[in-house]
């Protein structure tokens, strides 16, 4: 009996091996030289009807859903407005939503589904760098389009992604200029969450500091979502005697950081903190009185004084209640829908190649002010704004750059950045 059984197991395995053997092997990288050229899936986007599909891919569950839910709302608001205004090339936008579940692999999986099964013309979403990194190969190998709405660490420029948030030269570098020129800072303590954006941002800051004679007196990282090391970090910050703190902490660690910061007797007067990841919606959770007077660097605040922003804020509050606030990533997401619309209309086609070709120079009067797409690196020119948190928990602009800054994700225009390691694929 055992023999019989073993033979059957063996037969199954042999069958498996046979199937494997008879499966024609696909292209080898050596055969074609360039891997990406081989066997790309044909686009299945259907533009024959009177509507066209787009995908919204944001985390609606898991830790990142706190932030990404608000982005989803502004994307939906933009789509509604576009549809009410006659759609894109006369076609109504039909939205397919997916949950990224705060999980890079889920982002990759759902992006594939949106492209291959739902046949969407473009996908809007993603927040964390890891979600973008996970989706990037999916969009490149399927030759599809992603609109990514969050400021990020730069040093990337995929032809299949449009980056509508700031890159480092539109946020980090203006913030450093401001600290150096306006506040006279000569020493900095760097505090960040332990992931790619803070680490890359701090690498840039250190290169900048070396060039401009700013002393970096400390550099500390707290694991994402953790608060256990915050007391140690604040101890170190206080002991460092820095002129200011450059804060790239993300999410809940900020709550703990600012509570401890205030409790040991530090404030914006004694040692200002400039944060690049705290927007309007995070302020209440941290506590307005702990943040009041501290600095932030973004490209948009709810208080920005443009007619477009007045409309945007009003529409948003009407849709989601008077307590709803708007923030930079939300505005960048809102803008991304209009930018895509502009590109499609400039191209007169939904085809990816046509849209890519027509992208350069497409502009939009966004709530943050005028923005323009750079066709080379797929980022957009935007104005940098330094703000201070006010007593109402909103952020007032205290300084702005002279008009939109051209995006430079690879920092090619900065001599001091020449020595930095860069991703050779894009830079």
């Amino acid at each position: 009996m055992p023999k019989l059984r073993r033979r059957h197991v063996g037969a199954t395995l042999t069958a498996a091996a046979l199937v494997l053997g008879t499966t024609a092997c696909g292209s080898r990288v050596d055969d074609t030289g360039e891997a990406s050229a081989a066997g790309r899936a044909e686009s299945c986007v259907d533009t024959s009807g009177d509507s066209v599909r787009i995908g919204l891919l944001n985390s609606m569950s898991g830790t990142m859903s706190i932030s990404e839910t608000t982005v989803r709302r502004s994307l939906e608001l933009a789509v509604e407005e576009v549809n009410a205004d006659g759609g894109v090339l006369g076609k109504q936008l039909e939205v397919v939503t997916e949950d990224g579940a705060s999980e890079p692999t889920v982002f990759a999986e759902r992006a594939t589904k949106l492209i291959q099964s739902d046949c969407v013309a473009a996908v809007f979403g993603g927040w964390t760098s890891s979600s973008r990194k996970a989706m990037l190969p999916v969009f490149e190998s399927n030759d599809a389009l992603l609109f990514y709405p969050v400021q990020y660490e730069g040093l990337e420029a995929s032809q299949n992604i449009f980056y509508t948030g700031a890159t480092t030269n539109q946020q980090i570098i203006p913030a450093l200029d401001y600290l150096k020129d306006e506040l006279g800072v000569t020493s900095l303590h760097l505090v960040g969450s332990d992931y790619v954006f803070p680490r890359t941002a701090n690498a840039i800051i250190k290169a900048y500091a070396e060039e401009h004679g700013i002393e970096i007196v400390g550099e500390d990282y707290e694991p994402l979502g953790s608060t256990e090391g915050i007391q140690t970090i604040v101890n170190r910050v206080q002991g460092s005697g820095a002129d200011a703190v450059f804060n790239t902490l993300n999410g809940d660690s900020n709550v703990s950081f600012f509570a401890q910061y205030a409790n040991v007797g530090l404030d914006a007067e004694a040692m200002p903190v400039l944060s690049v990841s705290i927007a309007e919606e995070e302020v209440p959770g941290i506590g307005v009185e702990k943040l009041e007077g501290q600095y932030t660097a973004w490209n948009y605040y709810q208080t920005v004084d443009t007619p477009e922003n007045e409309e945007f804020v009003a529409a948003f509050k009407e849709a989601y209640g008077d307590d709803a606030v708007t923030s930079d990533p939300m505005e960048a997401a809102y803008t991304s829908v209009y930018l895509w619309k502009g590109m499609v209309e400039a191209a007169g086609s939904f085809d990816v190649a046509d849209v890519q070709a027509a992208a350069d120079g497409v502009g939009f009067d966004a709530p943050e002010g005028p923005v323009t797409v750079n066709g080379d690196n797929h980022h957009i020119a935007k104005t940098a704004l330094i703000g201070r948190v006010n007593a109402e928990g909103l952020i007032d602009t205290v300084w702005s750059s002279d008009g939109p800054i051209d995006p430079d994700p690879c920092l090619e225009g900065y001599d001091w950045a020449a020595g930095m390691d860069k991703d050779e694929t894009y830079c």
Partner: protein
Amino acid sequence: MTRRWAGSASVLSGYLVAAVILFGAAPVLLSDFRLRLLAQFLCVAMVAVGIGLAWGSGGMLTLGQGLFFGLGAYIMAIHLQLSDAGPAGRPAFMVTGSGLPWWWELFRNPVTAVLGIIAVPALLALLLGLGVFRRRVKGAYFAILSQASAAAFALLLISQQNTVGGSNGLSNFRQFFGFALSDPVNRRMLYFIAAGVLIAMVAAVHQLRRSRYGELLTAVRDGEERVRFLGYDPALVKVLAYVVAAVFAAVGGALFVPIVGIISPSNVGVVPSIGFLIGVAVGGRATLLGPVLGSLAVSYAGSTLSENVESLWIYLQGLLFVLVVAFLPGGIGSLGAALRGRRRAVGDVPGRSAGHGPPGRPLVDGGGPERAPAGARSGGV
């Protein structure tokens, strides 16, 4: 004897059905996207097969399989990055790093990479297992330590921005041992490899379970102290199952990488590690096919249900855990048997009645693993 016959026949037909479905029906019926998804589920199921052996047969509740899954996955990812970068090249992601860490070089060669995927987790499991089991750390202690090790591993990866990509992990692979990953034919090949490996793993566990070792493992689960007095060192018995489970998890992780295209610390921490267990519990931890089928079903349900009703899946996941583990410790498969058993043995202890599972193999009742025989250490002076 007839029960044995029935058992082997049902297991046998299970193999055949699995082969027909995996190699015949699925590739024909499913779209490329769904097939890729199935391949991904198969990788998770490999981890489940190992857990079935360690936990179901051996009573070791390992909450840290993410550690081994991650080791296999990262070694594979490192190899793929290096082959993309070409000879002596450096992977693209290391934007803020200084040089290539020496241990990356170990996995440039395809042979050492494959060996590493198996040997590194096996060695680590051997060391951890010997350290823990020799000192008779078990039950809850072992569960918590294994969970903490997965948590620490995830943190370690996150803090290594320069060498393993930090929280972003490693992604953007272009080839798999020379085959372009963008080619659908090659992706299909990956699916077949995953299916073949999974079936081979199930066959291996099948052989282990029906061997004398399998009986010994069950004996250790139900009475570790007693086994000691028969002249065995239970630590060695447990370590073998633990190592096998670790290797299965690592191979699952290694195949996960080219199929999904990314590995990041969020795939190896506490939450995914417990996630691997749901399917095993649902399918029936102590059965041969339960872990595989349960894992596939749970992966599928998770993917389908959360595609649009997000929070529902979280509730359902929690509820599944609660209902199955608390009331059906033998898994869904034991539902019918449990009902029959309850009717037959009215005075039976609750929870034990779920123990009479599918024919052929004695099925553990949920209480078995942790309940040491009361006599083993008791007794008056």
